[in-house]
């Protein structure tokens, strides 16, 4: 019997590569833990299942699905023909991330799913959406303090915007080598918002403030709803052209929803397109998290590094600072309006639609069971989506090549 063939079969199997680097089995365990959190604990399952499975596929030895080395270096110097010739399935799909296509399409879906009515009914909510971007700039400074380069610090800071597509969009432009840990941190903390925000909200507000019952917002006419996305696009893109892809797609999706003559397009954007892009985006972003990735001088520049730990910690701080910013401005509005605004809706300014608004509702109802803050919190919540896109546009203008 020719044992050499059996030996060849063994050498071709993934088992040989499994323990070449300790990072590989650790990454497989992390992927399985994330799958557990997504499936059993239901932490952002629509995204986390794809991210975790992408991570699993990319870390299985010799799977040849993802070759991060093909994407290394300056985005302008990437050899796209080489990717098409040598790349695996995930390399090809990853082009949509690399070229900033998927985050914009996701934003179109978000726009089609978002009702800006509560924001238009109470436009002062926009201030709360702006205040809740505090974490972006706080984390930016902290990242600089920890030794990150300014472009990397800007990408880390945007985690505080609590908006996954925006974080991915900015990171692919400014620090593509950090995409894996930043995306994981952004989406993980978005899932953990019900745990992160309530203690901060409770600590910063008094029982009297939490008890405030807000009056019903006024109705918004159909014509206002139609003109709003058009006017917002013109205004924001004139001020910050760098954010045109994100805001343009967000508002196009919203126009599909509101204009009343594109019901089919709105339906496709909200459902089919959104789901397809989510699959591609989540799987390929997860696949960028490769445990061992040799750098140019042979050192590990993969997911399991000290930088990842720093990013995870900074992401948590960014979320916390953003919550603090929103609640503090909520308290200011409470004072200015003579107690008509419940400061708890300020925390919803951290994007993360609609999770953050639900948290405002839950904490408010704990203080006063007959209080319904959900619709009031949706205003700051959707303002946060616009606010984080504006913050990303500013950082891109400052640090983009």
């Amino acid at each position: 019997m020719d044992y050499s063939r059996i030996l060849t079969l063994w050498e071709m199997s993934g088992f040989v590569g499994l323990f070449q680097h300790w990072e590989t089995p650790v990454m497989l365990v992390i992927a399985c833990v994330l799958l557990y959190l997504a499936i059993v604990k239901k932490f952002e399952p629509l995204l986390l299942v794809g991210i975790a499975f992408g991570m699993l596929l990319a870390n299985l030895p010799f799977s040849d699905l993802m070759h991060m080395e093909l994407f290394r270096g300056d985005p302008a110097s990437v050899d796209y023909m080489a990717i098409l010739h040598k790349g695996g399935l995930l390399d090809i799909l990853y082009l949509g991330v690399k070229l900033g296509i998927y985050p914009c399409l996701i934003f179109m879906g978000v726009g089609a799913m978002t009702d800006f009515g509560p924001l238009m009914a109470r436009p002062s909510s926009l201030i709360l959406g702006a205040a809740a971007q505090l974490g972006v700039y706080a984390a930016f400074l902290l990242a600089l303090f920890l030794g990150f380069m300014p472009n990397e610090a800007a990408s880390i800071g945007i985690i505080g915007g609590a908006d996954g597509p925006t974080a991915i969009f900015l990171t692919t432009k400014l620090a593509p080598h950090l995409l894996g840990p930043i995306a994981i941190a952004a989406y993980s903390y978005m899932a953990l918002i019900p745990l992160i925000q309530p203690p901060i909200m409770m600590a910063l507000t008094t029982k009297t403030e939490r008890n405030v019952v807000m009056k019903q917002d006024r109705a918004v006419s159909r014509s206002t709803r139609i003109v709003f996305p058009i006017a917002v696009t013109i205004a924001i893109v004139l001020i910050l052209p760098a954010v045109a892809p994100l805001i343009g797609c967000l508002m196009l999706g919203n126009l599909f929803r509101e204009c009343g003559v594109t019901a089919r397009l709105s339906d496709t954007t909200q459902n089919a397109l959104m789901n397809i892009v989510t699959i591609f985006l989540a799987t390929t972003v997860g696949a960028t998290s490769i445990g061992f990735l040799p750098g140019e001088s042979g050192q590990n520049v993969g997911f399991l590094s000290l930088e990842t730990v720093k990013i995870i910690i900074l992401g948590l701080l960014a979320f916390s600072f953003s919550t603090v910013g929103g609640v503090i401005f909520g308290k200011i509005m409470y004072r200015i309006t003579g107690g008509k605004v419940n400061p708890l809706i300020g925390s919803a300014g951290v994007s993360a639609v609609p999770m953050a608004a639900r948290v405002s509702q839950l904490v408010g109802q704990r203080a006063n069971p007959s209080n319904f803050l959900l619709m009031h919190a949706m205003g700051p919540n959707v303002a946060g989506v616009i606010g984080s896109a504006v913050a990303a546009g500013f950082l891109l203008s400052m640090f983009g090549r």
Partner: protein
Amino acid sequence: MGNINFESLLISIIGFSIVFLVLIILWAIIAVLRIVLERTGETAVAAPATAPTQDPGMVPAKGSLGEIKLYDVPDRIAALIMAIVADEMKAPLNELRFISIRKKK
């Protein structure tokens, strides 16, 4: 340790201010839209309220003890409102009687 300097602090302050500035501009845009567009819109939606019994949007719906009259309220929203009220009152829905649910103009 770190790369913090005066320039990075300035970038943070300007960046945060720009977010506020842009969103305040949006506030102004919404205010202008309200003035320009909703003047005519308000008269259009306020008209049916003067004659509720003639309201063409009135739809009888079942779901409580007796019939409910819905004025410009979709069934789904009405069901939500009834469920919330029942939950608040700690009473079974079929023991509560809702007379009508009207959209506030």
